[in-house]
């Protein structure tokens, strides 16, 4: 590795003064005697100095106001959203209750209508009720038993 390459590898640390005293001095002397390295160093220093220019960029004086405006807008939208959610829930509940009430009403109404219509039109009237364990219905069985 020649001298110039060694110097090039340390130029950024030289710029940031992050080398020991001896190395700093060594590079300083080299730069005074080598125009090629000197040009490279000046270029590097100029590019890195852009950081200081960017760091000192003036912030818009109205930035704080803009941020507060944005925050207020967020709050307003949030409130609007919350209100619409409450309104939506209210509408949903009302509609559900209405639907159930209408359902019950029609159920009772239709049920009542069919009941009265069926009874009125029915030709069948049940007068006797038979039960499987009714003794009178066991005549056949008792006959079989008696025949034995």
């Amino acid at each position: 590795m020649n001298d110039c390459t060694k110097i090039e590898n340390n130029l950024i640390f030289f710029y940031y003064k992050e080398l020991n005293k001896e190395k700093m001095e060594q590079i300083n002397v080299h730069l005074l005697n080598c125009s090629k390295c000197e040009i490279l160093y000046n270029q590097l220093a100029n590019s890195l100095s852009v950081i200081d220019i960017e760091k000192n960029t003036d912030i818009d004086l109205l930035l704080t106001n803009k941020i507060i405006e944005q925050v207020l807008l967020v709050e307003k939208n949030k409130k609007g959203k919350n209100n619409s959610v409450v309104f939506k829930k209210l509408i949903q509940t009302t509609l559900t209750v209405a639907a159930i009430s209408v359902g019950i009403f029609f159920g009772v109404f239709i049920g009542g209508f069919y009941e009265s219509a069926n009874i009125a039109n029915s030709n069948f009237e049940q007068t006797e009720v038979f039960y499987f364990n009714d003794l009178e219905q066991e005549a056949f069985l008792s006959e079989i038993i008696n025949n034995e």
Partner: protein
Amino acid sequence: MTEKELLIKVKQKNQKAFTLLVEQHKSLVFNTAIGFLHNKVNAEDVTQEVFIKTWTSIESFRGESKISTWLYRLTVNMSINYLKKNTNKNNIISIDKKNNENSAMLDIEDKNQNNSDKLLTNKEHSKALKYAIDSLSQRQRTSFILNKYENLSYKDIAEVMEISISSVESLLHRAKKNLQKKLLNYYKKTASF
């Protein structure tokens, strides 16, 4: 008012306290953002986003670190997201992504550039620095920006990035080496050394 008292009021959605918080910390957010974005308008956009996010999610700040640490983290994340969203919009300069030593030069399409002149213009230095920084890995870039744009100590950077101090030292050393390599290669190419 102490930081703790201020934050309690901000959590209670006190607008005056929040305005004070913005006033006290907008520079750190803006400077960090400009390190990533290199553009005033974009950095102001990110600064606004960071503080809106702070307002809406301040409840999640548990006070285990300083509010500045929390803001640095938010700014780094939001700046990186902002860059991702806007990557392909202004590609004036491109860097060879193969990371080839010889081809990893900055390919500036500035037609007014005078290559016979060995010294670059300020605009060219600005572009060269921007793309040299952008070519660093995300962690190297973050540590470099926090150190050089915000003058944060290794300890503070370690806290923001949630890594050890020795990792910060190593990241910064590699970041500077890589920046140097990119920039020197670029000067040699453009000035026909």
